[in-house]
């Protein structure tokens, strides 16, 4: 598979992939600066995996994109879940997590949820429309 050709043929799919990966890359660099390596290891693994998937069959490539989309959806749902948990149990003490549920974090969660669903829908389209 030619990477540029693939991207050119289904711009919206790869735009969504790009935005979601860029967001997590940015977050992991923030963490790297303060000494936490787990986020960067995770995202680096995903970048390598997705890059590699361009070199194999389209089916495998789409499977890996599907895996990424599901992770992104889970990520958004987990954040909503924790928010709900804090809403229901007002005695939970983790103030610094509780304070992360302002408007902007919710917008980010919704955006990521949409991106995850968007990627899934794009790769379900008939092959001819995408690649």
């Amino acid at each position, binding site marked *: 598979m030619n990477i540029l050709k693939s991207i050119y043929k289904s711009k919206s799919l790869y735009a969504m992939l790009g935005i979601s990966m860029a967001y997590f890359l940015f977050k992991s660099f*923030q*963490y790297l600066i*303060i*000494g*936490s*390596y*787990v*986020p960067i290891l*995770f995202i680096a693994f995903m970048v390598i995996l997705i890059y590699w998937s361009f070199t194999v069959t389209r089916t495998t490539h789409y499977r890996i994109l599907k895996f990424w989309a599901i992770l992104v959806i889970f*990520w958004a749902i*987990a*954040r909503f879940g*924790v928010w709900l948990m804090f809403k229901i149990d007002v005695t939970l*003490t*983790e*103030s*610094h*997590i*509780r*304070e*992360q549920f302002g408007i902007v974090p919710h917008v980010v969660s919704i955006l990521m949820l949409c991106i995850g669903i968007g990627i899934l829908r794009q790769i379900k389209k008939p092959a001819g429309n995408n690649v």
Partner: protein
Amino acid sequence: MHKSLIPILFSLIFLNTGEEPPLKLIDEQKKIIAELSGHSKLENGKTISSRSTKEERQLTREYLSNLIASTGLKPQVQEYKLPNVNPLVDLLFEPFAGANVYTILPSTNQSDDYIVFGAHFDTERNCPGAIDNATGIAIGYGLIEKLIDVKERNVNVILVFFDQEEEDLIGSQAFAKKLKKEKFKILSVHTMDTMGWDRDEDSAIELELPTNYLKDIYIKTGKRLGIPIYTTKVNSTDHHSFRELGFNATGLTDELVNGDYAPYKDTAKDTYETVNFNYVASCTELVYEVAKTLIEQ
């Protein structure tokens, strides 16, 4: 001059200038605990009802900076960001963000050595935190006020008020890291937490995980002042962060293990009215005498 005339003259001077006579240390400490726990309004009209949210902690930091400045020392703020305790949480949420407030009382004789005294200023949500830990702050303030008057100081003293103790000792971790990174020569670290409850009125304190060196000094000083000192192995407060990085650290608290401890800690009932101010005064005296011994060595 006739002796009975002196107080009259004294009060006349203050009447004439319109100034209030200076508060005694214990009254200053009462005022600090009252203001930190929302019992009294601040001079700017605001109230610190709790010290948990971002805004409340920022307001508290401003208050503490002014408090330090009132002693003539320079308040400093250490802002930090630290990862979550569980790295998986890092994938979902933002890191811890906060700031410690501290000051340095320089030695009078040239020295590169430092002793650290610290107390956390944050509380759990919706808790006034009068005993936990406005008392620790008031004792730290009393200590520095008294140390300023010591003429011969052979060691520098750092007084630090930690942020986010209630959330995995984050503030003290950040401060311990800073001291280590900047290669401060730290002789000892003493953290004070929850020192305002003494139902049996024996003035006793518990010393958490001291080295023999610190234990000896505290016990000797306690004997001299009539304050029983019990040692325990409790490590769930700020001194733990320093011990983790190899510092000679200990914690001071009320009789947590012995059973004479603040019962309303981390609740909305941890109010000004429950504070035993005689105990705050005797703890201040103890910490001061220990500090004096350490800085005169």
